[in-house]
């Protein structure tokens, strides 16, 4: 039958943990992204304000959103990988996935 998950035979540990962590990180990022949109709509002139190294808020916030996404992604991967390792060790010892 064609209709089967691709990774069917590959163990996938800590699904619930990863899912909860993903939602939490998504909410954090969505709030910060929403803040960017809100400032632009509510007080666009604030974006002209110089913040650091002579860069204005628009550039700092814009670059910040890109860099913050990467930082969150790395943290997420680190936490997920640790959790997967722990679960796989437990599974090897006869524990649950």
């Amino acid at each position, binding site marked *: 039958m064609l209709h089967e998950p691709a990774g069917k035979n590959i163990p996938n540990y800590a699904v619930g943990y990863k899912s909860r962590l993903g*939602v939490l990180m998504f909410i954090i990022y969505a709030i910060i992204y929403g803040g960017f949109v809100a400032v632009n709509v509510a007080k666009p002139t604030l*974006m002209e304000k110089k913040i650091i190294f002579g860069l204005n808020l628009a550039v700092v916030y814009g670059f910040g959103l890109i860099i913050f996404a990467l930082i969150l*992604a790395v943290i997420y*991967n680190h936490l997920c990988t640790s959790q997967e390792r722990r679960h796989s060790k437990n599974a090897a010892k006869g524990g649950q996935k």
Partner: protein
Amino acid sequence: MAFIIFAAFVTFVLFLSFYFARQTKSASGFFTAGGQIHWAVNGVSFAGDYLSAASFLGICGMIAVVGYDGFLYSIGYLAGWVVALFIVAEPMKRLGKYTFTDALDSTFNSPGIRLAAGISTLIVSICYLIPQMVGAGVLVTPLLGLPHAVGVIMVGTIVIIIVATAGMKSTTYVQFIKGALLIIFSTILVIAVCRRGLSTEPDQGGKKPFYNYRKISAIQENGRVLPAEAEFKFAVQQAHTTPQGELVVDFVKLEEKDRFTWWKVSKNNETIELVETASVTIRGDGSRFINGIENNNELQLGSLVQIAGKSGKDANTGSVGVFKLLTLLSDKDTIVKRWKKAAVFSDGDHMVTLFAPIETAGNKIMRPGLQFKVEGTMLQRLDFISLMLALFCGTAALPHILIRYYTVPSPACARKSTIVAIATIGFFYILTLYMGLGAMVNGVVNPFSDNMSAPLLARSFNTFLFAVISAIAFATVLGTVSGLIIAASGAVAHDLLDRFYNLQFNERQKVIIGKAAAFTVGLIAIILGIVFQGMNVSYLVGWAFAVAASANLPAIIMLLFWKRTTAAGIIASITVGVIAAVGMILLSPDMFERYGLLRSQAPFQLNQPGVISIPLSFITLVIVSLLTQKKNGQAAATE
């Protein structure tokens, strides 16, 4: 040389395609490269898929014309990956096999879901294909001197050959190479921009003399606007009469000692000033004149009038750092001369197009507001919110991105490849701001089509860089179109024919049908690429994101997180999402302008549908799911 490098690159891509063709025997090989691609390769390939013509040509072009507003696309496109990583990546890999329809249908086994999701994949893929094909047409004009339509047909044909011969494996490696090269050469271009620094008289490193557009005073006599300076002679004027019967002179044609130039009439209280426009005149015999001088090259504009209060030779900055460049450009005493189409009319047997300068302060250039009216009416602000919402939600719902989750062996690999993608794509998007601004101030923006700004910026440095950047941009289009066509052919062959109509094909037949579907979708893309000539490609992609986010994302999210989701709810949500988003785009002011009608006649005054169509799709899913609970008796709990 440009042509040789370009041809060599395309030949290499085709060679790669034929090489991998021999290894593609099964449907799994064709649609998902056998699920055996390394996560790091897949991550860079994600970047290759994602950094399409919209990112490279469209964003840089939009920044070159409207400044920071173009960069909003970079921010939104990248933010969308957060949704993809945290919410969609692993479940998609876990639940699906070939297409995202598999994942949606994994709980219900419903023919209706297969039909709705298959059609939605097709529609989103085609919406996304349009800007890519427009980008292809734009590229070949300066590179090979061919018309737009020829470029579109060329890309369409090459891509059909690539996809129809090898499928996902060749597409993955083409994307990997292209993604890596794009980052490397964009970095080189940004370094070159910073080393050149800023000047109020940009001459492309001495290759192209700076043309100074002038201003002169004028007087009005007997209804005619006449130059006040002796070296100019009045030739003809363009005027219109107001409803009150007053004659208003808009443009004046002046004779100089060796040519004719067009000037915009600007009135301030009692004084009249003539501002020189950039004019392109096509004469009846086909000869082409730029600013009154015969010239077949493209018109190129964009420069600084003032840098932090200084002008002329004193203003030259020499080499600047990455922060200093942005600091200088965002200074309120920096003035950028941007250009906007002012008029198209016939003057005897001459067809005249005029572009008038607009001087904008740096602090306005470096924040949102020139394209998206964040200080405008409530509706205009809503348009901005709508765009940012669609960009945020769209990435995780794009079929050609979703299918890439099936090319790696495990959910953990899907996650890791997404992180590589975020790093690569994020870095590139930071570069887009520099490339766009570099084009804006170096006199390389073609006002007829801003899409070529990045390649033309490269040409202002040297031909080699131009050829390589153009070849990469062309490969960008090739790669993205390949991915989209595979996604679309997967929807036809796997979701619709195999799973919805339950036609029992063997592996070989499935591959043949996939290839036939690729051929058909490729043909449709070619036609649409010609029809939408001239529109900014990133703007068009914004629409594709809105359609994807409205059609697919609510179904994916609710399936994963709401246990009461039913098959009927998913089908209704996809259907309403597609119809609402596409319908609102077709009825938007931008489309009405394209139809040749007045913008005010559009029944739906928002250009971006996301803010209405995405919530509508969510609400539909919830209501229909609640109404069909007993009937189906199925829940969508996946965990």
